[in-house]
């Protein structure tokens, strides 16, 4: 059993109805079932089914996971200004911050990766509701926390009946965008996670 040093913490935060809890479940399933590693997913939400603050957390490790919640996040995906402001302080100094650039006007750091996540979702699938899956694609592409095949399988399994194809499109859009960002940062300037490496 490995120790906790390989522990990788992802926090997805925004508003109720953005599908962040489902996104967390999909990420955890991709890692734990299809990549054969270990993962735990937890969530917190308010009484509102739509609106209100919502947060989903995924801990990834190759070994046993004791504490099931984020201690200091390696990745924060923020789909609202409030979520970004609330959870930015819980991000590791070298952590990756991905924000929906249309929903988060004031990113707390210049290192933030701003992507119009919701707009991209509408462009890719015609539905804003797939923004959560675009976000997963972004996280997957920007980090090595999960393999693309695993994420695709998990999305296919979890997507509501008849929506798998649409969600795979959203995932691809996010993943490709991530590769673009990585490529650009490599050629122009150090990327957000490579700056100090």
């Amino acid at each position, binding site marked *: 059993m490995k120790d906790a040093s390989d522990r990788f913490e992802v926090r997805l935060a925004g508003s109720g109805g953005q599908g962040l809890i489902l996104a967390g479940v999909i990420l955890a399933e991709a890692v734990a*079932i299809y990549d054969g590693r270990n993962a735990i*997913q937890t969530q917190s*939400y*308010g009484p509102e089914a739509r609106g209100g603050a919502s947060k989903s957390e995924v801990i990834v490790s190759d070994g046993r996971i004791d*504490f*099931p*919640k984020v*201690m200091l996040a390696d990745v924060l995906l923020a789909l609202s200004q409030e979520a970004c402001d609330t959870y930015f302080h819980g991000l590791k100094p070298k952590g990756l911050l991905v924000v929906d650039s249309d929903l988060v006007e004031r990113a707390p750091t210049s290192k933030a990766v701003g992507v119009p996540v919701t707009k991209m979702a509408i462009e890719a699938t015609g539905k804003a509701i797939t923004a959560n899956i675009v976000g997963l694609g972004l996280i997957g592409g920007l980090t090595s926390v999960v393999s693309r095949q695993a994420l695709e399988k998990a999305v296919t399994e979890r997507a509501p009946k008849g929506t798998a194809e649409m969600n795979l499109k959203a995932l691809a859009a996010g993943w490709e965008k991530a590769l673009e960002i990585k490529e650009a940062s490599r050629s122009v300037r150090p990327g957000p996670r490579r700056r100090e490496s």
Partner: protein
Amino acid sequence: MTMPRMMQGNEACAAGAIAAGCLFFGGYPITPSTDIAEHLARELPRVGGVFIQMEDEIASMAAVIGASIGGAKAMTATSGPGFSLMQENIGYAAMTEVPCVVVNVMRLGPSTGRPTSPSQGDVMQARWGSHGDHPIIALAPASVLECFEMTVRAFNLSERYRIPVIVLIDEVVGHMREKVILPPREDIKVLERLRPSEPPEWYKPYGSSPSDVPPLAPFGSGYRYHITGLHHDEAGFPTNRVNEVRPWTRRIFRKIKANVHRIARCETDGVEDARTVIVAYGSVARAASEAIKTARAKRRKVGLLRLQTLWPFPTRTVDAVCREARRVIVPEMNLGQMAIEVERIVGDRKVRRVNRIDGEMITPREILDAIEGK
């Protein structure tokens, strides 16, 4: 071998109920326990069982006891406010010695509190929630797999000892999704309640027996007898005679007390040479494990005693494990409900409490600070 799955604690609890042979669920929706009802509403009719959403938690608990006396393994699931409403009938089940399982997915109280936030505030209520002296069994899972295993065990204990068994899941464990491999069916030990073998005219539903647990005949099986919440004699009829009340009271306590070593389970991690022992249960034990990893990296001798059974309290184990330790830390998402029990055994000077009642989990950092004496 079954396949690994990502499963929620509440879902695992429902799966455990089905694996244990549960055939009846009567409940009322309440956050954060509702998933259990939803799963069983789907699963029970598939196995020939019955799900009913009752008009409130009082009725739920009553229906569960009614179903159990009809011969079906029966359960309900709720959270704090509903658990409060169930207390009178939980006492009735203890008094009438009718097996039943009550799952309480604990949320922050008192009152409506914070419905989606975790707590361990119902630990003492599980012990003393219903009026009058009566024994009780309460289990506290700390993982999704344990939600499954302990629900199975809750049914087994309930049927074995004719007693209500409470499963105290905290919101974190209930809602958490974790990778689990459920044991295959043939590896799951399932106990059935003892049925009478004597002819109906000799049957005594509350008679003395070597195990102190008399057999229980279901209604409609040819054994006609009386059940009452009044103090009763061996045949089940009400009595005011002290010489009939006293042996009954003694027997229902003895049947648990004599078996504490079988019922009360704990898990230890590195307590043998520990100078500091952490006594924890539920999700907080996981924060403790995390803190211990860090502390051991700093060469601190810290051990964990994780309570899997809260009631009956594992007095002997706590005493044995904590005797040599210099300090005992009891972290809880309440203001020290189990700490009282630990202090009773090891003395309160040795005990350091770490408490939170704001609906957030106790962090490994907070426990580490206590280990380091900060």
